[in-house]
C-alpha cells in the first residue's frame, strides 16, 4: 500500500485562506508515519502533478459556500466519480482551483484512485495573518479526523 498524501492548499497571508497550510503545519507535529504532507498554492496544474501516481490523496482547502464559518465539508472522488455530494464546478469566483485540477486530472488520466476534498468554510480571506476562531477550531477537528486510526468515514457531508 502506498503512502497517503495530504495536500494543504492556501495562502497564510490571506487569513482563513491559510487553513490548508495551517492544517499541514499542525499535522507535521503529529508524526504520521504513513503519510506525506505538502503545501500548495492552489495552482491546478501543480495539484495534478502532485497527486499523479498516488492512490489516496486528501486535499485540505478553504471554501465559500455561504455556510457558517468553520463548517467542514467533505467530498469524495473515487475513480473519477464524485460521491453522493459533489462540489459544483465552474462557480468559482476566480475560475481556478481544485475543481479545475480534478477535471484536468480526469482528462489526462492523472486522478488518484481516491481523492478526498476537505473544505473548511472561510469567514475572512482579506490580507492578513491568522485564522478566525471558528476556522482555527475546524483545523483541530480536521486534524483529529486525519490522525484517527480508524478508516476514514464514507463519502458524505459532515458538519463540524
Amino acid at each position: 500500500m502506498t503512502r497517503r498524501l495530504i495536500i494543504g492548499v492556501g495562502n497564510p497571508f490571506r487569513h482563513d485562506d491559510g487553513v490548508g497550510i495551517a492544517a499541514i503545519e499542525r499535522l507535521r507535529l503529529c508524526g504520521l508515519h504513513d503519510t506525506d504532507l505538502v503545501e500548495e498554492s492552489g495552482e491546478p496544474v501543480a495539484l495534478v502533478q502532485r497527486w499523479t501516481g498516488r492512490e489516496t490523496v486528501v486535499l485540505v482547502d478553504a471554501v465559500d459556500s455561504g455556510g457558517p464559518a468553520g463548517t467542514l465539508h467533505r467530498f469524495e472522488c473515487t475513480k473519477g466519480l464524485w460521491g453522493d455530494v459533489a462540489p459544483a464546478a465552474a462557480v468559482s469566483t476566480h475560475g481556478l482551483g481544485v475543481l479545475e485540477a480534478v477535471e484536468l486530472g480526469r482528462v489526462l488520466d492523472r486522478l488518484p484512485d481516491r481523492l478526498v476534498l476537505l473544505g473548511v468554510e472561510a469567514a475572512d480571506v482579506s490580507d492578513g495573518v491568522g485564522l478566525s476562531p471558528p476556522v482555527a477550531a475546524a483545523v483541530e477537528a480536521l486534524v483529529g479526523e486525519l490522525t484517527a486510526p480508524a478508516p476514514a468515514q464514507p463519502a458524505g457531508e459532515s458538519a463540524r
Partner: protein
Amino acid sequence: MTHGNGSRRLDVHALARVEGEGALHVTITDGELTAVQLNIYEPPRFFEAFLRGRGYEEPPDITARICGICPVAYQMSACLAIEDACGAVVDGQLAALRRLLYCGEWIESHALHIYMLHAPDFLGYDGAISMARDHRAVVERGLRLKKVGNRLLEVIGGRAIHPVNVRVGGFYRLPSDGELAELVPELEWARRAALETVEWVAGFPIPAYEGDWELVALAGGSEYPIMGRNVGSVSGRLDIPVSEFSEHIHEEHVEHSNALHGRWDGGEYVVGPLARYSLNHRLLPAVARQAAADAGLGPECRNPFQSIVVRAVEVVAACDEALRLIGEYEAPAAPAVEVVPRAGVGHGASEAPRGLLYHRYEIDGDGTIAAATIVPPTSQNQRAIEHDLAHVVEANLQLDDLALTARCEHTIRNYDPCISCATHFLDLRVDRVST
C-alpha cells in the same frame, strides 16, 4: 460538472490566492468604445505595510507568498535589495546557484503560461482542459517541461512552492554534486522539448499588432538578464542603475483600480519578455538565438501576441543556462555570505517571468525594516494592457459579448499578468449604452 449518479450539488467557490484578481469594465456608447478600465487587485501594498518593523532577514520568506507562481522572483529581488542596503556582495558560485534556481522558475512559469493558459487562446479552446482532450500529447509535454522547472526549485530551493532554502546572503544548504547531476538528463530532454515548443507556437495564427511603448528591462550585463544592476530601454532613453529606479518610475493611483500604475517620467512603457528579448537577444545562448531566428523573430519584438514565442525562446535559454551552470558548478566555501545589518537603503531588481520586479528597503542600524516598496511587473504593465484592450475592442465591436470577452482575455494573457485573472475574467462587464 454533471455526474449522472443522482448526485446533488453544493456550490463551493474557490478563493483567490495567487497574485492578482481582475475585473475589466468596457463601455461602448452608441457603438463606439468610450472606456476600458482594468482593475487588478494587488497584494504588495499589504506586504509593504506588513514588512515594516520586521527583521531584515524576513522579506525573502514573507514576500515569496505574494505570488504562488513566481516566489523566487520575490525572494531574489528582496535578497538583492537587502544585501545592497547592508553592503554585502553575493557573487561567484552563490550567484550562479541563484541564477540556476531562477532558471527553474522561468521554466515552470513559462511552461504553465504557454501550455495551459495562452495556447488555448490561439487554438480556439476555452481553456486547458478542453485543449487537453484534443491535444493530449502536447499538454503532457508541457506538464513534463513544467515539472523539470519544479525539480530545479525543489533541489536548490528546498521545495517548489514557497522555497524555504533561500536566505539573505545565499542559501541555508548547498545542493550536492549528485543532486545536480541527477537533473541533467531531464534538463537535456527539456531543452529539446523547449525547441519543439518554439516550433509549435511559432505556427500559431498570430494577430498583427504593434505596441509603440518603450520596452524596459534589466540590461547592460554580460548574460541574458535575470538579476542585474542596470535598467535600460530599447530606445536608450532609459539607462540607469537599479538604485535610481524609483527616481524615474513612479507609481500612481488610478481612480478605477486598487492597483498602482507604474509611470516612467519619459513616457509609457512595458516590462516582460518582449522587453527582455528586444534589449538583450544578443546575449541569448546560441541555441535559443537560433530558435528565435527560426521562429521568425527579428532583433526587436513589439507584438504582444508574439510574447508566447518569446517565452518559448526563453524556456530554451533557461534550460541551456541551467545545464551550463550545473556543468560549471563548484561548491562554494559556505552556503551563504554573512550579511551584517547597517542603517541604509537598498534596491534590488530581477526579471520575474512576467517582467521586472523591483524591491526597495530602508533598514535601521539594528536591521529593523523602516520602509518597503515593491513594484511588481503587473502594475507596470497595466496601462499598456488597457491600451491594447481599447485597440482590440474597437477593432471587434461587432462581436457579441461572449466573443469579445474571449478576445479581451487573450489580450490580457499576452502579458501573463497573474494566474487568477489570466485564467478567467468572470467579472468582465460590457456596457452598451445608447444616448
